[in-house]
C-alpha cells in the first residue's frame, strides 16, 4: 500500500490540473482501500492506543463518502488518500504502544528477578 502511495505521489505532477483524470472507478478504488485501512486500525485496537489518528481517519473517510455521494470524484479520492494514511498511522502507533507496554512489562519482571523480589504474594 505504501508503494502505491509513493507511486501515486510520483504521479501527482501529470494529474495536476486535470481533475477529470480521476473517474468514478479510481475514486471507488481509493475509497475501498481507505475503508480497509481504517478497519485494520480498528482491529489493531487503535481506539485505545491512537484515538486521535483513528478519529482523523474516520473524519476523512466520512468526507470521502460525502464527496462520492455528490459525484465529486476528485474530492472523494483526495479524502480517501488522507483516510488511508491516517488509518496506516493509527495502526503503526497502536503497534508501537503495545510493543512498548509489553517491553516495559518484561523489564519489570527482569528487575524483580535481579533484585530477588518476588512479584507474587502467596495466593
Amino acid at each position, binding site marked *: 500500500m505504501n508503494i502505491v502511495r*509513493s507511486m501515486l505521489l510520483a504521479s501527482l505532477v501529470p494529474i495536476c490540473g486535470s481533475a477529470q483524470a480521476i473517474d468514478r472507478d479510481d475514486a471507488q478504488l481509493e475509497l475501498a482501500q481507505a475503508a480497509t485501512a481504517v478497519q485494520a486500525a480498528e482491529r489493531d485496537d487503535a481506539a*485505545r492506543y491512537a484515538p486521535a489518528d483513528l478519529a482523523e481517519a474516520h473524519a476523512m473517510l466520512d468526507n470521502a463518502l460525502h464527496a462520492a455521494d455528490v459525484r465529486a470524484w476528485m474530492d472523494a479520492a483526495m479524502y480517501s488518500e*488522507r483516510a488511508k494514511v491516517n488509518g496506516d498511522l493509527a495502526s503503526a502507533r497502536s503497534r508501537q504502544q503495545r510493543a512498548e507496554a*509489553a*517491553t516495559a512489562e518484561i523489564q*519489570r519482571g*527482569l528487575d*524483580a528477578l535481579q533484585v530477588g523480589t518476588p512479584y507474587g504474594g502467596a495466593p
Partner: protein
Amino acid sequence: MNSRRIAGASLSVVLLGLVACAATPHGPPAGIVRIQAEQDRLHSDPRIAANGGVELANADAAVATLARNARMLSPRDYEQGLYLTDKMLQTAEASALARDAERRGEQLAIERERAGARTRVAMTAGEPRRHDERGPMQDDRERLFDMQRRLPNSESKVDERGLVVRLADFNFRSGDTGLTATGENSLDALARVLDDEPQATARIVAFGGEGERRNRALAVRDYLGARGVERTRLDVRVTTSGAPAGGTTGDVLIVVRE
C-alpha cells in the same frame, strides 16, 4: 531620438527582469523545508534509522518527489502531497519505534530467562529443600521451566507455587474486564502450553477484592476456556490483599502446576 527610445525600452526590460527575479522566492517552500527537517530528524535517530524498513524508504521517496516537483504542482495538489508525506513520515517513525521495542522485548525475555536460571542454580546450591505438598517435585519443576520457555513474551517465573504468569493491570482495558491485545497474546501462548500439558492445572488469582477484580479472573478463565482449556483444570480465587509484592492492585496471577 530613436536611439533614446530604444535605450529607454531596453532599460525597462532589464528593470522588469530584475523585479521578476527579486519577486521569485528562492529555495524550497517552507512546507518542504519542514518535512525535510523531519526526515533528517528520523534518520539521525539510530532507533529509527536501523528499523525504518519499507515505511521509511517510502517516506524518503515521497519527500524527494514532492521536493522535486513542488513548484510545478497546483496549490491543492501541493497541500495534498505535503499532508500525505507528513503522515508517511509519522508512520515510518511509529513503525520503526515499534520494531525497536519488539527487539528490545525479545532481548529482555532472553535476559530474564538467564536471570531465572541463575536464581534456580542459587536455590539448588543451598540446603536441600524438603518436597512437601506445597512445592512441585524436581521433575515437575523442570517441566514448569520448560513451559516457561514457551512463554517468551509473558511475565512469568517458577517458584514454590509453580509456574506463575502475571497479567498486570494494564493488560486489561481500563474500566473494563476485557483483555488488551498484549494480555490476549500472553493467554494465547499459555493456552497452547496447557493444551500440550494435559496434566497441568491452573489457579487464577485476582488481587484487590471482589467486583471488578473477580470479573477479571473470570474473564481470564473464560478466555482460556474459549481456547480449549477445560474448565475443570481452571480454579478461580480472589484474595482481598491489595496487590502482590512488586505488582499493583488489579494484577491477576495464573499459577500453573503439574
